[in-house]
């Protein structure tokens, strides 16, 4: 008793406009009963963190295909820390070279999902990794 829907922010940081993947994910999460805030392409880390705070999301999924992930992801994580956001699940998808993945995980980004990942895997990942205390409606 007393669980609310999971709220997820799907965001595309950086300059590439390939948002098909992000839209597929957004749609799949919606169909899995989540509330998805989709903010579109060309988001700065500042915009992503601001949206995450105002919308009080449980998870942030970032998709990036431009290769700028090593510049943008650390900034997002830094801003989250600066704003005291420490209980939000962060995951990434898109074109992320294998050799970068350890460094990405090091930043606190829990999941990395490349092309070909089934939407089922991502739904499962979000459900299992969102902080359960966040979803409780009784204190």
């Amino acid at each position, binding site marked *: 008793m007393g669980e609310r829907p999971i709220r997820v922010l799907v965001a595309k940081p950086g300059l590439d406009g390939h948002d098909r993947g992000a839209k597929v994910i957004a749609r799949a999460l*919606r169909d899995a009963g989540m509330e998805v805030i989709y*903010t*579109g392409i060309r988001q700065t880390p500042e*915009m992503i963190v601001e949206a995450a705070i105002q*919308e009080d999301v449980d998870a942030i999924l970032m998709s990036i295909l431009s290769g700028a992930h090593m510049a943008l992801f650390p900034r997002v994580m830094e801003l989250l820390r600066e704003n005291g956001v420490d209980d939000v699940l962060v995951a990434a998808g898109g074109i992320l070279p294998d050799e970068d993945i350890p460094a990405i995980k090091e930043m606190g980004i829990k999941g990395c999902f490349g092309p070909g990942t089934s939407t089922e895997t991502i739904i499962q990942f979000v459900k299992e990794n969102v902080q359960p205390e966040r979803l409780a409606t009784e*204190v």
Partner: protein
Amino acid sequence: MVTLIESEAPVATRYLAQLHQHAGKAHIIGITGSPGAGKSTLVSRLVRELRKREKKVAVVAVDPTSPFSGGAILGDRIRMLELSGDPNVFIRSMASRGSLGGLSASTRDVVRAMDAAGYDPIIIETVGTGQAEVEVMRTAQSVVVVVAPGMGDDIQAIKAGILEIADIFAVSKMDKPGAQQTVAELAMLLSLDPNRKKSSWRIPIVKTSALKESGLDELADRLQEHRTFLHESGMMETREQRQVQSELRALILQAVSHALTEAVSEDEWSSLIDKIIRRERDPYSVARELEARIGLQQS
């Protein structure tokens, strides 16, 4: 906090009861209209105009929840990107979570929290269904109905519900062909309204174009005038009474609905439903029985 309210958590009610003391200062504006009429874009531009006037603005944007999965895609922020980075603008997306009438059940409470936090005005953007968004009337003080040109039949649909709830009409996309005609048709509809002469508030039609960034200052002015009018004419009190009444009713109905969920198990529901379908029982006596169980008097 807003998350707790939206979840209708029991603890939120305690906070809200305290917040009630601090709320009541903000001008609450409802923006409604058909899907694609340009509500989000208009809201975004209106907020920018209000920011020029040094207002601290909150936006509550409601998008529909899927009745099948219970999930939702909340995309209103996409059209409000120009507002990001401004600490005096707070945007919150809400899913309608099964509620009809263009708002979610807890929108009113979220607005109350923002009101208490000192945001003024607070803009509520409804789900675009194009009809029966009367719910917004029970929460907002000034209602703006957005009408896009080139939807001839839309005017027909508007005749019924929406015409009565509008305090201000905003015709969007004035840069598009046919916009003047839409304005003319609206003006004609308004002139047909028999109550128009009785009321001292003449519903203005504001021509806006987000593309050309025109009409937004006028819209902000008209909203301000409407607020002044509400206060001076005593209409604000009437509206508040109506709003409190509908809120109390809603709270009581909610309690009844919760009590019913508590008192009747899923299994019992299905067995009762089965019996009614097989004509072993009738819906009226079953309803009576359940009413009595949750403590409602039998009449």
